């Protein structure tokens, strides 16, 4: 039986990778992919705890995370397409209209 802490450490590593990806990348598609990484890290946590407590509620919450991820992807990619139409780039540094 694998200790629960291994799953938590794995999930933390994946989550940190996602955070660093959001911070260091300029390509807005990669930023969205990094958000997916973070959501998957939380899902690993949910399923690991659900398995160790023999409680199925954790897996139900993975469903809601999945819903939010799907909604986020649909809206996010629509925003990316709208941004690309207005500026012909997806570099986040080019979008600085609100910067003062």
């Amino acid at each position, binding site marked *: 039986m694998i*200790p629960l802490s291994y799953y938590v450490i794995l999930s933390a590593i994946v989550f940190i990778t996602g955070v660093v990806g959001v911070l260091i990348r300029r390509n807005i598609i990669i930023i969205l992919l990094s958000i997916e990484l973070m959501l998957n890290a939380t*899902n690993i946590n949910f399923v690991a705890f659900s398995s160790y407590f023999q409680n199925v509620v954790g*897996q139900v919450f993975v*469903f809601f995370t999945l819903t939010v991820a799907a909604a986020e*992807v*649909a809206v996010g990619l629509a925003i990316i397409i709208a941004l690309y139409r207005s500026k012909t780039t997806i570099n986040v540094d080019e979008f600085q209209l609100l910067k003062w």
Partner: protein
Amino acid sequence: MATLVFFYFAGVIVLTSLLVVVLRNPIYSALSLLIMFFHVAGLYVTLRAEFLAAVQIIVYAGAILVLYLFVVMLLNIKREERYHPQFPFGAFLGLTILTEVLLLAYHRRVVNEPASPLSHTARTLPNGQAVATDVAPAAGNTEMIGEVLYSTYLFPFEVASLILLVAMIGAIILAKRDLFEQREG
């Protein structure tokens, strides 16, 4: 054997999630994310969440990632994208959090060394109440999720459907080029 399988899945998950961030071509990033999703699904199978493993592959790999690849190919980005100038800040922040996690894990191991391992105590809830361990194999994984989802969590389930509806309308309005110009003109 189970440990070996876990370390295989964990290693591939960590490696591909690093590749998602490091690779410069968005298509390669999306494809390594695909490999990561499959291995996360494998991890779910080892945790006896077979239904979620199937949903992970169908929804994440089948729907979400295909959408990403559509957009990447639609926008057709060929220019070289450099890293963000706040790279040192991000790397510093990541290293700090990683160090904290490692320290916490090490500390926990030192504290818990004389006590029984975590996998052994996990059969009891935090309030000390023992969990019936024969609940999980009694019914299938899918039946259990369905029962809980449609009884206790019925209202969040309906809210989730509302979220999906809002996302669909929002995506159509955002992505359609001249939805409002046509109506005015």
